[in-house]
């Protein structure tokens, strides 16, 4: 039957199902190619703004006693430069690349949750816009991108500036976390058949680790931002020493996020390098297993070194030695990757092209950044140059070397894929030399500026410090670099419209993303290939034509459906057919109500903000209600019939919930860490004004949580045996128990001491809100599944397995929470 369609007819049939709407309706698009490009374009816009801010700073510092910018403006500019580059350029740009590329590399037709990707983009755009609009109004955050308390607190920054940062960035971080959930579920479940973990494209490995790090690394900062916003707006004292808080807690939470963040930025870029280097050497990557393992090692190690940003706050000697050693250790897996690239170049013949030029620039710059990094890990050296321009130079070598150069290489390399046209080699190399020379001229002398004692974040300096010539060189370099970027952009813009048409697979690469027409059709591939090799196109050069001819999986279009295969996580054996949602307005509406929530918090309209939060929840419920699949079994290939994804355990939805719970768990762990940290290290503890929770109450709460943890399993069992009535009974019981729990926690919270009185009271209040929120959501979700059990067409097996995850998590975190409430504040240690 599949042979009856010509490639052209198949293309038109698939395009009908997968094409994104045009005109103003394109705002409802969800396709990963569209969303990936939108992420990249928005990130580019934020990058340009951040770059202009950098030029303003360099203009100010070019000479001593400059009167170009005043102190307040300069503070806003350096805060915004760091914030834009880290949160609104680097992460979204890399997520955009991943959104665009991953399904294509994995031989799939879309990401696991196209609508979540669209929601993430809107959240990112709205969150970033809050910051940009504030900057245009002169109200930009001005306490540094690190927002140290108490400077960022309400006493020293009474204006709206800090709130703009806390709320805008939290909003944008929600986007990053949604993106990470999406990437994890996609890489694990949505691939071409036969692509086991050992055949995963190396970029997918890097992105899997990165996404895992985002899930674990962003929640500490989200928690920190919530706590600081609570302190600023409601006066709950988490960081105020006078009332039992501690400003150092903010630094811990910030760098618990902040150091992994550096690797979250570096790893995807390194993944691009690991993808491009073999292509230009025309040899497979040397030491694939080594590289994958070292990437995983970097992921874990990066969570153990945050304190090296805090060597000067007065940490005990032993602690410093530990973190110093851990900081150095991370050089080992990085060196393994570096030598794997060298060995790959070594084993092949290098074809020089513009991307290879940028890769060479990356290797050079990144080695310098890595070496100064090892220097900074040494405590005696660190306490001397910490917070000087030496660190500024180091971090730009690491981040620009580690991110910008690979990114520019990637732009040139994948541009023919995105636009179908080749960029110019000549203009590309001219741009490279401007950027490379400008960059080194700007930042190499800056190491010396720092060693000569120039601190960071000063808006002016006096003559006779010996800093003038070095600063002039840096400023000159910055402007040369800017010219380079302008040439680069011009090149990209001109040639994406008028360049020569790109041939198929112009770089002779081995990856699946080159097995399709360029620019890619909306459905990517007409049939999903059976993958037997890490570089499928090198093994089977004709694979692209075979796929277009429909000789592989899912070649038969199914009108009205967007289908792609879901595979076993480890082996890549196809297990189900995913039905993905098409364009819709729910992502935009939900992002709008989310924006309404954040804006109301920003302008202190708390009652209205609760309304928006409820509205967002309702929209999310509508969202999940859609996407019903009727057909029970679908023909995926001659003779092979697969179930729809809703019928199988371990569907992408389950993995998505599991990933989201990792992030939630990291948030809860940060909260517990914060409580213990304050309890042990903050001045002004223990506190006397605390009455412990009564025994009867805590036993009742624990019993409720235990019941909750068990009931979903019972409901699942009943549903499995097709005892629908029984399953409904368990679900109804779950709803009532969660509501009782919510009521119990509310009673408890009302009886607590005034949260503005002491950090302990505030922490306990936050803990109970967390527990109450989870119990409340549990009741909503259980009621939702209960209602859904009457919807005959959709089996509720998948819903029940997702609900079970949530209830068990709520039960465990709830019991830990009750234990903390009982024992924590009153007991003298």
């Amino acid at each position, binding site marked *: 039957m599949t042979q009856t369609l010509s490639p052209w007819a198949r293309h038109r049939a698939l395009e009908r199902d997968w094409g994104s709407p045009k005109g103003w309706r394109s705002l409802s698009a969800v396709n990963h190619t569209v969303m990936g490009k939108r992420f990249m374009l928005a990130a580019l816009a934020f990058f340009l703004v951040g770059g202009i801010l950098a030029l303003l700073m360099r203009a100010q510092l070019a000479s001593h006693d400059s009167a170009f910018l005043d102190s307040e403006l300069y503070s806003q500019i350096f805060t915004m430069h760091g914030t834009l580059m880290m949160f609104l350029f680097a992460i979204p740009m890399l997520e955009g690349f991943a959104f665009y590329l991953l399904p294509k590399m994995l031989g799939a037709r879309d990401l696991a949750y196209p609508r979540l990707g669209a929601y993430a983009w809107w959240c990112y755009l709205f969150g970033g816009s809050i910051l940009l609009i504030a900057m245009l109004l002169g109200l930009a955050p001005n306490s540094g991108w690190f927002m140290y308390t*108490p400077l960022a607190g309400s006493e020293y920054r009474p204006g709206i500036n800090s709130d703009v940062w806390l709320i805008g960035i939290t909003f944008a971080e929600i986007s990053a976390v949604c993106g990470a959930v999406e990437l994890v579920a996609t890489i694990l479940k949505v691939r071409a058949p036969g692509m086991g973990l050992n055949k995963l494209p190396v970029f997918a490995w890097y992105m899997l680790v990165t996404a895992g790090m985002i899930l674990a690394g962003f929640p500490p900062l989200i928690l920190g931002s919530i706590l600081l916003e609570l302190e600023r707006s409601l006066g709950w004292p988490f960081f105020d020493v*006078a009332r039992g808080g501690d400003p150092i807690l903010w630094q811990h939470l910030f760098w618990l996020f902040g150091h992994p963040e550096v690797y979250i930025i570096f790893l995807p870029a390194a993944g691009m390098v690991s993808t491009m280097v073999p292509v230009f050497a025309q040899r497979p990557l040397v030491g694939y297993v080594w590289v994958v393992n070292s990437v995983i090692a970097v992921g874990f190690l990066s969570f153990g070194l945050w304190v090296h940003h805090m060597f000067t706050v007065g940490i005990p000697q032993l602690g410093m030695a530990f973190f110093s050693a851990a900081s150095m250790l991370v050089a080992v897996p990085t060196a393994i990757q*570096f030598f794997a690239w060298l060995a790959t170049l070594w084993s092949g013949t290098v074809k020089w092209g513009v991307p290879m030029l940028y890769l060479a620039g990356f290797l050079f710059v990144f080695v310098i950044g890595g070496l100064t990094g090892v220097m900074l890990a040494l405590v005696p050296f660190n306490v001397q140059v910490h917070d000087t321009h030496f660190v500024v130079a180091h971090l730009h070598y690491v981040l620009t070397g580690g991110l910008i150069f690979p990114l520019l290489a990637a732009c040139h390399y994948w541009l023919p894929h995105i636009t179908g046209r080749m960029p110019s080699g000549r203009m590309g190399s001219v741009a490279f030399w401007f950027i490379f020379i400008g960059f080194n001229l700007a930042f190499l002398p800056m190491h010396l500026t720092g060693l000569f004692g120039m601190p960071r974040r000063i808006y002016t300096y006096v003559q006779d410090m010996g800093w003038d010539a070095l600063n002039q060189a840096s400023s000159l370099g910055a402007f040369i670099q800017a010219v380079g970027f302008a040439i680069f952009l011009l090149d990209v813009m001109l040639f994406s419209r008028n360049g020569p048409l790109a041939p198929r697979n112009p770089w002779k690469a081995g990856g699946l993303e080159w097995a399709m027409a360029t620019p890619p059709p909306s459905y990517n591939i007409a049939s999903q290939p059976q993958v037997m090799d890490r570089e499928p196109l090198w093994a089977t050069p004709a694979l692209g034509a075979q796929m277009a001819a429909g000789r592989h999986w899912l070649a038969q279009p199914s009108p009205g459906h967007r289908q792609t295969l879901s595979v076993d996580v480890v082996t890549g054996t196809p297990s189900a057919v995913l039905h993905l949602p098409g364009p819709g307005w729910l992502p935009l509406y939900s992002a709008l109500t989310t924006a309404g929530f954040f804006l109301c918090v920003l302008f202190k309209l708390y009652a209205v903000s609760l309304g928006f939060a409820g509205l967002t929840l309702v929209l999310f419920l509508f969202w999940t209600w859609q996407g019903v699949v009727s057909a029970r079994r679908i023909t995926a290939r001659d003779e092979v019939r697969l179930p729809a994804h809703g019928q199988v355990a371990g569907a992408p939805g389950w993995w998505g919930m599991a990933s989201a719970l990792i992030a939630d768990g990291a948030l809860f762990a940060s909260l517990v860490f914060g409580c213990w940290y304050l309890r042990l290290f903050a001045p002004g503890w223990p506190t006397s004004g605390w009455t412990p929770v009564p025994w009867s109450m805590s036993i009742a709460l624990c019993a409720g949580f235990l019941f909750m943890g068990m009931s979903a399993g019972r409901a699942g069992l009943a549903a499995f045996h097709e005892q629908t009535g029984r399953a409904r009974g368990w679900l109804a019981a779950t709803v009532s128990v969660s509501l009782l729990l919510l009521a119990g926690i509310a009673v408890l919270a009302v009886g607590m001491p005034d949260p503005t009185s002491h950090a302990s009271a505030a922490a306990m209040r936050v803990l109970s809100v967390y527990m109450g929120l989870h119990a409340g959501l549990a009741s909503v979700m259980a009621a939702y599944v209960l209602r859904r059990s009457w919807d005959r067409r959709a089996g509720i097996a998948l819903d029940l397995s997702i609900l079970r995850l949530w209830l068990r998590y709520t039960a465990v975190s709830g019991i830990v929470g009750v234990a903390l409430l009982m024992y924590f504040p009153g007991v003298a240690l």
Partner: protein
Amino acid sequence: MLLMVLLAVWASLRPAARSSRGSRAALLWGGGVIFPLSVLIALLVYGHYPDGKAGGAAHGPPFRVQVHAHQWWWEVRYPDAGPVASGKDAPYDVNELHIPVNRPIHVELTSEDVIHSFWAPRLGGKMDAIPGRVNRLELMASEPGVYLGVCAEFCGAQHAHMAFRVVAHDGPAWLARQRPEDGGDPARVAERDRP
């Protein structure tokens, strides 16, 4: 560093030749594991081993200086300056620390408002001044003279102007400063300090 760049250049420019599996594994093991580990362990031991030769020969008990950081100035007190004559104020300085040479100085740092960081580059590393806690920075001046210092942690609008000076005095000058009423004469100081 130079080695890595040379290797990279050589690897990319040399003519086609397939290297054996063995040499690639050697590159990964040698360059990726053995080389960085050996260098790092040596550095770590060196960095944490107290070398005890910072500056000249130290003598005398540590001299404490209490520094309270404010937005945007430094308040300096000397608890070890000896008994204060009646009718006089305890010694007190703003944006200046006066210390004796060749004696270990313990700077006790705290902040009255936001976080600042005390840094006199030629005397040693920096240490943060944090509200609610007291951090101790140990330093010593082996030569008399004036040492410049700055605030190294961003602390608000006038962060760039929050500088200070450390003035190190040698023996007689130090005594004269400590006990102006004794004219800096060691004999008279000793006489008066006798119980």
